[in-house]
Structures are given as C-alpha cells and as structure tokens.
C-alpha cells in the first residue's frame, strides 16, 4: 500500500467538497429548511401511497372511490372495487374531481359584498352576519341546495323545520319525471333500479346511460356485460331510439332516428304489439289500443314494420327499455317515462331487468318547478334571505326563469361554495366550502347500502375553507335547532351510530363497524325491500303525443355533456380538454347539424352560425355530425360560463339561453325539448379545437369488425399473427420460430442486444376488447391523472397539440339518420403500442427512445433533445410533444402531480409508458415480499378506470396471465402489424356487429 491517499478516501473528500460546492452554488433568495419527520405520522411512509375510501361528489350517482394520497396530498381517485355502484371503475368526471380540490380559482377566504365589490372578512364575522340575517328573516328564508348526502340533508331539513322557511333541492340533471312516472305506473315514489347486465335486448329511448343518465359508471359495466360478446359468441343487442345519436347511441347496434318527442308513442306502439301478441297490459290495455304501429309511424318518422319487429324481439327475449333521459325531457316527459315503464311491464321485465322495488336513492329527482316557485317568491319580495349550497341556478336556469332579477330583490343572499360561480357572484356573502375530498359526508345510493365520505387530506392550505356541515351546524344552533355540540364529523358519527343501532347493530360494536365502514368505504345496514309492484292505472291524465315546440325551424336538442355534466365540470382543465366522446371537440361549444343540412345551407365545418330561438340566441361553430336528424340540431350543456374561474369563463356557450324555462306539468321538470331554432350563418369561421383528423378509416385495417355470424363460424382472418411471435418479442431475444424464414418472424437474432437473460424478463402487453369499449374516455383522464399529463388549452388544441397519452380514435362506419337501421361507430383507444420493432427507437439520435428488457418502449425525458423524429416515424401517432412548458400550472393545481412520474419540461417528447411506475412498484413490492410477481398484478391506470373492463394488462409471456388468454381470442389483431412489422404489444379484439361488415384484410 502506498502512503498516499486511498481511492476511497479521495472519493469521500471529493464527495464532501462537491456537496459543499453544490450547496453554496445552489443558494436561493429564500432559505428553505428541509425537515425530516422526527416523529413520523402514523399513516404516512414517505414514498408509499396511503389510500382512503370516499364517495365521489361530482354527480349524484354516488360512486364509491379510493383516494390515493402521497405524503399527505391526494393525487389520484380510483373506483372502490368493494362498492356496488362504481365496482372499481370511475368516469372522467370522477377523476377530475382532484382538479376541483386543487383548483386555483377556489375561494380563499369568506367574502362580503360591499360598494367596492367583494371584500374579505373573517370567518367569525361571516358566521355572525349569516346568523343575524337569517335569524332576522324568520320563515322568509329559503335554502337552495343540490342533491346532498343523507346526514347533511337531514340537518338542512332540520334547520328549515326549526327556523321556518323552505328548503329546495335543485339539480339541473334531474329525473323527476321518471320518479313521477314510477309513482303513477307502480304506486312507488322512487327512481327504480335497472339490471342491464341480465338483458339480451336493450332499447334506449334516448337515455344516455353511458354518459350522464342516473349512474353512468355502473351502467358502463353492466352494459358491457350485456352487450359484449361472451365466450359462447353470444352478444346482447342494443337499439337506440332518439333524434340524436349520443355516445350511448354510438354504441348501439341499431339506431332509429325518431322525431324529437315521439319516444312515448313508439314505446306505447311497441307495448301495443306485445299486447296484440298476448301480453298483459293490465290497466293500460285500453290506452294502448289507440297506439298501433301504423298510427304512430307517421309521428315517429319510422316505418310501422320496424316498430313491429323491434316489439316482437323485445317480447321474445329478456329485454329492457330505458329512457328517455334529460335531453328528451319535453312537455310529455312524465308520459314518456311512463310509456317506457309500461312497455317494460308489458314485456314482463319488472322483477327481472327492471327492479321497481329497489330504490335508486342517489339520483336526483329535484323538481324544476320547486325552484321556480322560490324564484317567484323572491321576485314578489317574499324572501328575506336565501342560502345556496352545491348548486348554481344563475347559470343553469334559462333566462326566462328570471332568476337574476328575482334574486336582486332578496335582502340577503348567501352562497356556501367551493368556488365563485354565477350564483355566488350575485350573493352578499360568500363562504368557502370544503371540497368533498376534505370533508365529512355520507351516501346512501341504494336501500341498505351506506358509504362514508371521509376527508382524504388536510384541507388545502391555500384556501381558508370550513366544512359545510360545520357552517350549517353553527347556523342551526344559532337558530335554536336542537343539535348537539361538536363538529359535523361528530354529528355524522352520532347519526351513524343511531342507524347502526336501528339496523340491529350488525358487526358488533359501533367503533368496529365505523372503522370497517371507513376502511372498506361501503357497509350494508339491513333494510326491508318491498316486493315488485304491479302496474296500476295512473291517477292523472297524461299526454303522450309529441309536444309542440316554440318557434319554427329545426328542433333543438339540449343534452347534458358527458364531460362537463350540467356545467359544474367546466372549471377543470382535464374535462375541458378531454375531447368530447361524440364530436371529439374540446374547450368550446358547437352545434351538431346533419352534413346534408350543413351542405344545403352552404356551410362548412367550423362556420360560425347564430342559433336563434324565440327566447334567445347563441353563436357557435357548426360541427357536421351524421348522427343527428336533418331537421334537428343539438347543443351540449355545461359550457358558456361567465364567472366560474379561469378555465370555464368564456369557453363556449350556454344553450339554456335558448330555452323558455317552462316546466313540465306533471313532474315539474324543465322542458329541455322545447324550442325550434333558426340557424343563420354569420360569415365567420373558426378553427375548432379537435383531435379528429378523419373519421373515415378509408378501408384501412385500423378498427376492423366482425359480424357475429362469421364469428360463430370462426371466419375471422386474424390467425396470421401467432401469439408466440409477440411472446418472443421485446427486442431482446430471438423469436422462438417453429420454422424459419417467415418475413414477419422478426426481430431477427441480431436484434438481441444487451446482456439480459430473456427468461428473467416479462413481456408487458395489453389487450383491448373493442367490443366492450364504449369510447367513454374515462381512461383518457385517468391516464392524465396518473401520469402528470398536462393540459394544453384551447389555442394549442386548435393547432393539434393535445398531450393525451390515450387518443380515443373514433371512426364512423355506418351512421345514417335517414332510416332506422344498423349503426356502426368504431372506437379505438390508441396508445403507445410498445412495438417489438419500434420505428421510433432507431431514429432517435440520442437514445431517448429505447427498448427495455421487459419489452417496454421507454422514453428518457431528460435525454430527449426534441428532434421529433420519433413522432414523425411513429405510425400510430401516439407520441406527443411538449411544445411549451405546459406542466407549469398555477398553484395549487401542481399539488396533484404524481411524485412517481416525471413532470415533463418543454421541448421533450412523451407518450404512454404502460404506467411503468406501477410496474416497478409492483415488482419492488414482490421483491420485498420475496415472491414472484403474479401475472395480473400490475394494473395500469386506464385498465383500473375502465367501466367496461375492456382493457387487460399483464405479462404476455406468462400463459397464465389474463392478457395472454384474452389475446388468444380469434378476434385479436394488431394494428398495421402486417404492413409495417411493428409487432405491437397492444392486442385489439375486434368489435362484433350484427350487420354484415366490409371485410378488411388485417
């Protein structure tokens, strides 16, 4: 040994001095102290996620969720697999609830209106002011809320009971007519439950059950079970009757483009046919007499024979009729709902697919008329104080309702809200509410089914918010309502203890029960369910005929948006940027018009038109859409906000401005189908923010389909790609060739590089069943949440620069609005195919795109210099580029970022990574537990989120894995593999149709 410095010592000195230099060099203006956990919180392990069960608050379906938190911050929402409503899946809006939590436009402190606009005040001042004014109002007080959980709802009801006044529930997307129709037809004042999974023929009278109707996630799963082809090559049929093809309709096998408002008479005519064929219609037999298919054919705009055939099929199988949904609610809304219920009853579906005994308690049946009564009272000066919580009538009501003016004559208006909105902007006092993810609450979506919504994190410190329940508890106490001391948390727990005791104390003592409820997110408390009722005669007269519409011109369909819902999703950039599943447009509004109409008017796509009804007008660009009748136009709800934060304001138009604001007579619902509109060109044109290039696949083998008859005979030319090829792939070992010489048997042996032992490595692969995929785009947003995919905004999207890792391609194969017949829309979630011989890899000059030993197509963001050659050479066009620093989002929106995934800077390429962080996390977990990783253990975000369970992921080299088994299906194909030999790791399973499809050689 020499006496000089040893190598190890040298390195130590180097390290220490280097670190010192680094510390000095990195001095910033602000000295930040990094404090380790001296006493670590019990449930936080740095680097390991903690999950809390909760309930989604984005719509009133009541999906159970699991919220993933890291180091105390909520970063992802997933469906709770224990929960019978969500069953582990979640929709796009549920995922985006995180952006409500971290929305930079949330209220930061209580505010009071003064001469100079809103001024911040303290919570103490605010609460005493609230109490003083509400107490002063006495019974001249109204409490307007959305659909709330049972405990909060009871508290609110208690307040008005004690203090006088009135509580009104108001939800723009309300199923009041369905509830009223159920009462009329069956004597039960409930919203019934549907068991779609058991149906072989589903007929939807415009119900968009995959988007907004009642419980989209739950229906997404049961629809997939009913409608996708099973292992015996059986497949349920789905017929959609509506003037406009919604996303739900695009998943139908047949579309009857009936006249707007004629749903009721068609349903009655179908029941008529069934009765003629011997079915029992009970008290409705006389009513049905008049509605023969011939009699309604003219009115509905479809041939009588078609109605007859459908009716016979409906009677012959296990069937289910659904509808009509919010968009079809017109002056005959209750009658239409009743007609559909009667049709179900006549076909014998009550008790099998239609469950009238079990109540759907989650869905809102708020009556529009209740609110208009309050508005009238306000206008008369009959109200002294109004409190709004969880609802935004100033935005959602048509101007004809006169809400704004009426509110002006109320002495004291209070909004308890997370964010400034159109209603809060008119109020005198605005109180920042906790987000559902920071707050206590509960849900009771079905009889006996209970969930607790627990806070998943400490309230976001940027916002001085208070729990809604605490605000109302304080108010209740001040008003003399007899509520115990303590917080709403304690109040909620006390109510649960009562319920637990009342249900016979299942599961022993309450503490254990409570903990179990918190842990699993869902518990059952036994409740008696009555037997299925029989049809009964309605106790009031109903009009089934098509309602007459105001004005002249084309009928206007105003439908709820699957992205923005009734408008409350508009403040979330993920939802604004999510391409609409139907039109693929984002950020702005559009009017859907049939291409023939568009051509006839001399318009083109993107031309701005003025849509004018007798009640108002809006200016929107034209989207030529073959899925809408030529005499009908459609505009989506949810856009056109004026005071709802930076992401919502000025984006699109609010079609409610075109509606009269009239209520249906029976159930009091808002008439959505109420006007005809004139469409006038303005001479302007705008570039639309869309991801859609062409919706015609030009006979290319991208999204092929197979007719079910061919499938049964085994005529699917898909066997040209033996699975072994893919199993051998990965780029690191030669293909196990049964015989040599096939050109597609690449990669050749020289493609093996690196010293990897192929036996040690899996080959990650995915299978996507296009027969199940409904195009709902939940995966798109789930992926955004998981992988820190940035939103780019309207201008960038207009240039074609969306960053989504999943592009939900949509091709129109057969969409014809002129006749009832087959409809064929193909959805194809296009993600990085993780090709075995990836075209992107060799062209990268710096090895930023490279192949991992387990077959992943890796992308090293830090190495990328941004030549974009890889994206040019990607045949699937799944590589997206950070043209600007899109990841730079306003605080605290960045709190959502997943710490396991790099946040990408400008100038780098990115794409789907197969959720490599989840793969590594599972692998590490398996290593820690000294076991072999299971074949199906890794679940990427898209698969996790998919309500239809269309996506399967795993190690395809393991024959036990589900992905290997699913990929054996005869429907399997890989996009463009034969043409360009990319050897994708994503196996698609063809869509199965009932009608013949043009064969495309794949």
């Amino acid at each position, binding site marked *: 040994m020499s006496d000089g410095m040893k190598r190890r010592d040298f390195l130590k000195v180097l390290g220490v001095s280097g670190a010192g230099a680094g510390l000095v060099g990195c001095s910033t203006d602000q000295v930040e102290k990094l404090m380790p956990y001296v006493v670590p919180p019990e449930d936080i392990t740095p680097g390991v996620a903690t999950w809390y069960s909760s309930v989604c608050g984005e719509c009133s379906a009541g999906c159970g969720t699991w919220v993933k938190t890291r180091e105390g911050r909520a970063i992802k929402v997933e469906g709770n697999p224990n929960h019978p409503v969500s069953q582990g899946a979640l929709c796009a809006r549920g995922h985006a609830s995180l952006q409500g939590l971290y929305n930079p436009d949330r209220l930061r402190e209580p505010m009071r209106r003064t001469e100079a606009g809103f001024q911040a005040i303290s919570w103490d001042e605010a609460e005493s002011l609230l109490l003083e004014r509400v107490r002063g109002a006495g019974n001249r007080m109204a409490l307007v809320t959305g659909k709330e959980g049972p405990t909060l709802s009871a508290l609110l009801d208690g307040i008005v009971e004690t203090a006088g006044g009135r509580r009104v529930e108001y939800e723009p997307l309300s199923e009041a007519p369905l509830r009223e129709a159920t009462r009329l037809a069956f004597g039960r004042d409930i919203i019934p439950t549907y068991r779609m999974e058991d149906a072989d023929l589903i007929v939807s009278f415009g119900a968009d059950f995959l988007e907004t109707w009642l419980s989209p996630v739950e229906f997404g799963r049961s629809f997939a079970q009913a409608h996708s082809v099973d292992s015996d090559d059986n497949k349920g049929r789905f017929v959609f009757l509506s003037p406009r093809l919604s996303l739900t309709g695009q998943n139908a096998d047949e579309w009857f483009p009936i006249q707007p408002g004629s749903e009721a008479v068609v349903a009655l005519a179908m029941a008529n046919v069934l009765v003629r064929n011997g079915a029992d219609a009970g008290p409705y037999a006389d009513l049905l007499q008049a509605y023969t298919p011939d009699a309604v054919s003219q009115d509905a705009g479809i041939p009588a024979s078609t109605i007859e055939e459908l009716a016979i099929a409906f009677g012959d199988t296990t069937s289910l009729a659904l509808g009509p949904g919010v968009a079809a609610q017109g002056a005959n809304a209750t009658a239409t709902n009743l007609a559909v219920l009667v049709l179900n009853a006549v076909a014998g579906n009550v008790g099998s697919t239609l469950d009238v005994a079990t109540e759907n308690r989650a869905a809102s049946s708020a009556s529009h008329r209740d609110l208009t009564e309050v508005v009238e009272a306000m206008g008369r000066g009959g109200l002294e104080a109004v409190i709004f919580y969880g609802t935004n009538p100033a935005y959602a009501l048509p101007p004809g309702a006169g809400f704004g003016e009426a509110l002006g004559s109320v002495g004291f208006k209070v909004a308890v809200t997370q964010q400034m909105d159109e209603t809060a902007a008119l109020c005198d006092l605005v109180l920042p509410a906790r987000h559902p993810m920071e707050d206590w609450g509960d849900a009771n979506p079905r009889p006996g089914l209970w969930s607790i919504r627990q806070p998943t994190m400490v309230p976001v410190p940027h916002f001085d918010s208070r729990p809604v329940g605490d605000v109302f508890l304080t108010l209740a106490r001040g008003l003399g309502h007899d509520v115990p001391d303590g917080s709403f948390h304690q109040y909620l727990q006390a109510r649960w203890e009562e319920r637990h005791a009342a249900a016979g104390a299942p599961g022993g003592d309450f503490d254990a029960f409570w903990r179990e409820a918190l842990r699993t997110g869902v518990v059952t408390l036994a409740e008696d369910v009555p037997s299925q009722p029989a049809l009964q005669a309605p106790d009031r007269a109903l009009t089934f005929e098509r309602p007459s519409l105001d004005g002249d011109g084309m009928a206007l369909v105003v439908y709820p948006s699957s992205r923005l819902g009734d408008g409350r999703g508009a403040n979330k950039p993920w939802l604004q940027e999510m391409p609409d599943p139907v039109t693929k447009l984002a950020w702005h509004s559009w009017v859907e018009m049939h291409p023939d109409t568009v051509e006839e008017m001399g318009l083109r796509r993107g031309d701005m038109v003025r849509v004018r009804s007798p009640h108002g007008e809006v200016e929107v660009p034209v989207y030529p859409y073959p899925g809408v009748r030529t005499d009908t136009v459609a505009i989506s709800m949810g856009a056109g906000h004026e005071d709802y934060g930076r992401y919502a304001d000025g984006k699109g138009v609010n079609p409610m401005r075109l509606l009269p604001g009239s209520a249906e007579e029976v159930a009091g619902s808002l008439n959505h189908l109420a006007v005809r509109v004139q469409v006038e060109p303005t001479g302007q044109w705008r570039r639309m923010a869309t991801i859609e290039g*062409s919706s015609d696949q030009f006979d290319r083998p991208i999204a092929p389909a197979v007719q079910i008859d061919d499938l049964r005979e085994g005529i699917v030319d898909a066997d040209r790609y033996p699975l072994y090829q893919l199993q051998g792939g990965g780029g690191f070992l030669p293909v196990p060739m049964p015989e040599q010489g096939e050109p597609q048997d690449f990669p050749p042996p020289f493609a093996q590089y690196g010293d990897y032992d192929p036996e040690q490595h899996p080959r990650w692969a995915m299978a996507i069943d296009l027969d199940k995929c409904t195009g709902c785009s939940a995966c798109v947003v789930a992926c955004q949440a998981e992988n820190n995919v940035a939103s780019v905004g309207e201008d960038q999207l207009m240039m074609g620069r969306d960053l989504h890792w999943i592009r939900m391609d949509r091709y129109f194969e057969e969409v014809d609005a002129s006749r009832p017949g087959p409809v064929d829309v193909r959805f194809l979630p296009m993600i990085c195919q993780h090709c075995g011989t990836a075209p992107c890899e060799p062209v990268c000059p710096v*090895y930023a795109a490279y192949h991992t030993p387990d077959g992943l197509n890796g992308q090293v963001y830090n190495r990328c210099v941004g030549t*974009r050659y890889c994206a040019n050479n990607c045949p699937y066009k799944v590589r997206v580029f950070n043209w600007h620093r899109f990841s730079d989002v306003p605080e605290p929106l960045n709190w959502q970022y997943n710490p396991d995934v790099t946040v990408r800077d400008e100038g780098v390429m990115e794409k789907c990574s197969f959720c490599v962080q989840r793969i590594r996390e599972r692998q590490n977990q398996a290593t820690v537990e000294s076991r072999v990783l299971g074949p199906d253990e890794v679940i990427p975000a898209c698969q996790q989120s998919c309500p239809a369970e269309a996506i399967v992921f795993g190690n395809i080299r393991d024959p036990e894995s589900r992905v290997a088994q699913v990929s054996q299906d005869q429907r399997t194909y890989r996009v463009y593999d034969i043409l360009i030999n990319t050897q994708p790791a994503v196996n698609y399973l063809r869509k199965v149709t009932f009608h013949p499809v043009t064969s495309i050689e794949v």
Partner: protein
Amino acid sequence: MATATDKPRGAQTHPDIRSYGEVNEDIIRMLDRPGKWWWILLGMSIAGIGLLAFSWGNQIINGIGVSGLNTPVGWGAYITTFVFWVGIAHSGTLISAVLFLFRARWRQSIYRAAEAMTVFAVMTAGLYPLIHLGRVWHAYWLFPYPNQRLLWPNFASPLVWDVFAVTTYFTVSSLFFLLGLIPDIAAARDQAKQGTLRHRLYKSISFGWRGTDRQWHHFGKAYLYLAALATPLVLSVHSVVSWDFAMSIVPGWTTTIFAPYFVAGAIFSGIAMVITILVPIRKIFGLEKYLTTKHFDAMAKLCLVTGLVVFYAYLTEFFMAWYSGKPSERAVFWNRAFGHYWWATWIMLTCNGIIPIMLWFKRVRYSIPALFVITLFINIGMWFERYVIIVTSLSHEYIPFAWNVYRPSATEMGIVIGTFGWFFFWMLLFIRLLPPVAIAEIKEVLPPPFRPKKKEVAR
C-alpha cells in the same frame, strides 16, 4: 471591341479579355470601395440577421411551440429550409470538384462564387438542425463526445448520419474553397495597401504564397486530391439527407429513389441558385467579359438535365405510389396532388417541371434575364418540393384519425427569411473581401501574353 482573334485558345471562353493584367485589375477592383447597392443589400442582410436573432430568441425563450408545428407534422418549414440550403450547397462542390476532374473548362469563371455559395449555404443549413430542436441547449448530445456516462449518440439514427455528413461537407468544402483562394488572395494581398487590416487578412490567409513553381506544384496536387475527396461528398451528403426521410416508415418518405432524386434535386437547385446570384453580380460589377453567355448556357444545360431527372423522379414517385397498392401510400400522393396542400404541389410541379422546359431553347439559355427569372422560379419550386415532401407526408399518415394540417407561424417565417439574410450577409462580405472570380484559373485559359506589361504576381 478588340477581340483576341489571334489567340484562339482564349477566344473560346473569354473573348473579351485582353491581358492578364486586365484580369487582376478587373477582379481586384471589385474589392475596392463598395457602391451604394452593396451597402443597401448589406443593410438588408443585417436586418435579416436581426430578424433571425429575434425570432430564434423568441423561440428559445417561449418554446418551440411558437412555430406552427403540431403532433402529426413534427417537421415543417425548418427542415424544409434545411434541405433547401443543403441542396443549394451542392452546386459549388459539383462545379469546382467534379467539373474540375472532368476538365470542363467553363467552370473557371463561376466556380469561386459557387464554392463560396456552398460554404455559406452549409453554414445556413447547419443552423436549422439547431433551430428545430425542442431543447437546443442540449444539441451537443448529438456529437460523440467523451463523457463520464459513456453515452454515445445512436449511430443507427439518420439524424446522427446527418450531423456527420453536414459537418464533413462543411469541412471539406471550406478547405477546398480556402485552398483555391490562396493564389488569388496573394494577388489581392500584393495590391492591397501595406499595413491595412485588409492587407493583414490577405497576408494571413494566403499563407505566404509567392507563386513559385514548387508552390504551384503542391497547390495543383492538393487541389486535385481535395477535388477527388470532395467528389463523393457531392453524392453522399444529399443522399444522407434524403435518408432522414427514406429510412423512416412514413408514407411518402419511405422510398428507395430518394437518394438519387435528392442529389439531382440538389444539383438542380444549386445550379439555379448560382445563376440567380451570378446574374446581378455580373451586372453590378460589369463582369460580362468573365461571365459570358456561354457560361450561362452551360449552366442552363446542367440545370435542364438535372431538372429532367427531378421531374422524372416526381412522376416515378406518383407511379410507384399507385403501383405499390398500399392504401396509405396512395392516399398520401392523392392528397399531395388534390388535398389540402395541392397548391404547394402544383407550385413544385410547375416551377421544377414545366418552367425549365423553356431551357430546351437556345435563345432562352442565352438570354440572361430569362435565365434569371427561370432560376428564381426553380429556387421557389425547390423550396416547395421539400415542403411538399415533408409536410404533406406527415400530415396524412397511416392513421386517418390523427391527420392534421400545419401552417407555418410568423416566427418560422421570420427565421426562414432571416437565414436568407444570414446567407447573403456572408455572400456580400465575400464579394467585397475575396476575389469572387478565380483570377489564376481564368489566366490559365487565356492566351499567354507576348510580353509582360509589368511584373506578374500570380504567374
């Protein structure tokens, strides 16, 4: 005008030049005090460089998103202009090296300007790979420099080949240019006033040239070897550039004819640019004696030949797209001719295919104004050729749902226009500082004088 009819050898190329001394005077006179037009043009060029600096600065600060590029069309005006300039750069080496080896004597008058153009065009082209990067500050990662992480560039990537091809070409063409300049700079040095900056510059880059036999001997050898070295580069550089496209799997790019097609196109555009540049130089400096219509005729013929090759390649591309039977390939070419970018394609076909037909006529080839106009059209057409190849192909690939169109943004146009300023800035400096016509070589083809009027420096 006295023509040297008794000296038939010189009469073939430069009938109006009477003596060696006249050559020296005429050419070196060009390096004297510049005229008004030179200053105006220089001012415009510097303004162009300013625009380039501003636009590029804007892009670096605000991200490459200030361009009009998008997801299917990842390359647009930048790569178009890159290929355009690399193409322009081809004529210089062709004229100086290939024609030198083939002993085409008409090259003497034009090769210096063509070579200068080559060097400056490569300097311009070389900016674009930097400009189009998303993270230009990491551009050095494309070079195989030794680093602690043992990371190399990906030698399989055509972009890395590009780096080598372009840098090699720049090195060799610069050396070739500077080598050929030595005797002429020495002549200029001897006429420059002692002690001036100009004199010192000439002194340093003439490397002590005295015109001895020994020096001439070495010079001749070196020139020949460099010409032989440069000749394959004429073919290789643009072949490599074409492989940026041909090696991909993009329909409309992935075709085997790209290398010869691009080389022919490069020579076509290069010669056209030489004509475009020489016409005003000839006019402004009164070089009619040196750049005769015969020279232009020869260049026009070369232009015509390469133009025909290029047009043939266009037709072949369309034919092969149809003959391949590949739907995506067919769709790309259908889209080229009749789709969103039909106008670009028809500009390309008209400028490069139809207009050069006029060069069949001798009267056109001998008409300087006609040539100037035609070559301007060719320059425009060749820019659009690259635009058509790059943009239409990328916008219309395999997945119809991902199709999209691209429109260049103001920043991109600023950069494209700015690099013309950058190119002409160097070009203008060149004609002021270095002899733009090869003095020594012109003399080679002139008839030897009866007796020297004064001591000849160069020979």
